[in-house]
């Protein structure tokens, strides 16, 4: 998997008219895009069967660049649109690209209910801790005391632990990784694509141009180094003393369980009803 050549990515991009892309130099969004494509390629999925749905935000601009069935929707609503696509054609692989604001502020309600239903959507949440597209306002994952254009004196609110939120709501596959850990990210995405149920992958990402500048993070390379140094794999958590875990980004698959998937549940309901109807004459 690791040695799939770079040009694979190019084979999955739309070449006419869609470039240059809108992302800033140093933005993590492209890294995530690369990992998704390599995961898809490694599974040999038919691109006709992939639907990529997104909301509104820098991260949500991703679908336009890729040669899949693509749907760029409204701010916060990607999961709701994806639910419609998936329920009508359950054979399609539906991937949702969303930002921290898109998914946990305006779209929080759709997130928790899709997780509760366990509908087979692959939600990739690119968490850059800020509203990137609109220029740096506070999001539900902006850290306490961090600076945002709407929190010029520091954010007084606590931030969401997105993965715990998804687990609490019933998601059957939940994982966290960072933009630095590309191979891990790719592996997790592959696992998620094969998991039959609602999957949420939080990718802790860098928005060096807005979040980085506002909070003096020292540019994209430094932010990447921070992800490397300030995160620990889940497997190591138990072996470390609590003070070494405190404040760190925990990476890995945090929840993986098999429970009834929504479209499958619906299909069996239809079977049940049809049998009953046939019996009634």
């Amino acid at each position: 998997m690791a040695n799939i050549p770079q040009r694979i990515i190019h084979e999955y991009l739309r070449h006419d008219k869609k470039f240059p892309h809108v992302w800033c130099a140093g933005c993590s969004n492209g890294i995530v895009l690369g990992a998704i494509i390599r995961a898809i390629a490694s599974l040999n999925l038919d691109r006709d069967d992939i639907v990529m749905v997104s909301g509104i935000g820098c991260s949500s601009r991703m679908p336009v660049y890729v040669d899949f069935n693509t749907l760029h929707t409204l701010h916060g609503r990607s999961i709701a649109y994806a639910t419609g696509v998936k329920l009508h054609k359950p054979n399609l692989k539906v991937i949702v690209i969303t930002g921290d604001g898109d998914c946990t502020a305006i779209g929080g309600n759709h997130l928790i209910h899709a997780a509760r239903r366990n509908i087979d959507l692959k939600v990739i949440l690119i968490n850059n801790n800020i509203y990137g597209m609109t220029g740096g306002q506070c999001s539900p994952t902006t850290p306490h005391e961090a600076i945002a254009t709407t929190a010029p004196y520091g954010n007084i609110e606590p931030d969401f632990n997105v993965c715990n939120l998804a687990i609490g709501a019933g998601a059957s596959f939940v994982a966290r990784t960072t933009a630095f850990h590309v191979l891990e990210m790719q592996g997790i995405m592959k696992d998620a694509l094969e998991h039959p149920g609602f999957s949420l992958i939080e990718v802790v990402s860098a928005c060096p141009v807005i979040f980085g500048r506002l909070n003096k993070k020292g540019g994209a390379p430094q932010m990447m180094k921070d992800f490397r140094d300030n995160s620990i794999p889940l497997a190591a958590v138990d072996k470390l003393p609590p003070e070494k875990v405190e404040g760190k980004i925990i990476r890995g698959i945090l929840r993986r369980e098999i429970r009834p998937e929504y479209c499958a549940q619906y299909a069996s309901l239809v079977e049940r009803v049809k049998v009953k109807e046939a019996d009634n004459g």
Partner: protein
Amino acid sequence: MLKKNTKKAEPKKTTKPKATKNETKLDELQSTRERKNVLMQGNEAVAYGALDAGVNFFAGYPITPSTEVAEILSAELPKRGGVFVQMEDEIASICAITGASLAGAKSLTATSGPGFSLMQEGIGFAKITETPCVVVNVQRMGPSTGMPTSPAQGDIMQAKWGSHGDSPSIVLYPDSVKESYELTIRAVNLAEKYRTCVILLLDEVIGHMREAVRLPDMANVRVINRIKPTVPPHWYKHYDENQKYLSPLASYGEGYRFHVTGLTHDSHGFPTNKSSEASEMMERLRKKIDYNIRDLVQIESHQMEDAKIAIFTAGITARAAKAAIAMARAEGIKVGLLRPLTIWPFPDDAVRKMLRNVETVIVPELNQGQLIHEIQRLTKDKSDGNLIPIQRVNGQLITPNDILRKIKEVS
């Protein structure tokens, strides 16, 4: 394996000749119901109209006075292999039916005022992306929570302008249980044909009223399906130009791999900032309605031949008007009714023509003045004194006597 993955896929289902036919008659099998004369509620008629039109996807959120539509479809759709899903709110509902439509479903949702307000952004998305779907709004008294079980006709303008930005609308308005069935089918047909979000406005009283109706046999139901592309994927344009602005629509999963965005887009569906492409897109949305106005407009003219007084109104208020007209005619007063079944686009030409020989126009409506502004616009030749409003917003209907009194006043 990798090769297979990267080649341009052939269209799968789209090449079947059957799928390209855009008008089909569903066979009797699809409906197991006996078409007897039965007592039926307006909301029930909407649900059966949706099924007969081929709706196979419903997403909604419960709200009085529209809930019966959801309840019936939750029982009926699974029997037919269709999808019913109760979403977390009305925003999710409009989004889900739009997503399903892009995957090829015929989709519909039903709601009332508060939910209709929540859906507005999604309605605009369906319009700009030219995605077929139907929103049924069983109007209740507002603003806000208002009087959930009381009638009002307050959403007439919202149905036209509710979503931000310019976007021409198709809005239908029945006045009986039978017509609720018929216009639901028409709404689904027009959505498919014109690739847009069509709105069906019902009055609370129509939604909850029961009347004796006999639904037509399925053989007599005219069902329109969207035109599917016949070109290979690399020729496909999601918004193909043609004279009538009626273009084929591919579905996700059929090999076309098109892009859909709520951003202003070019004819392929990709975002654009070019003003020429932006105005092309906007013109397309407008002309799609304008160029097909004769197909879209429907208006009932009742006893207008010799009328000196005309009543212009829609929905339940038109039924009060008809009763008033019968009473007035019994006393020799020449009065008639014009009732739009399509309120948007507004039937300008028809109304102008039919009101030419009329001296006075009475516009009764259950709001503080919405339809009357359209009549004002079209009757500039008449003095203000000849345009008479009757408006009520207290949860009660305008009665035949209310209208009769006005008729007598002006005759």
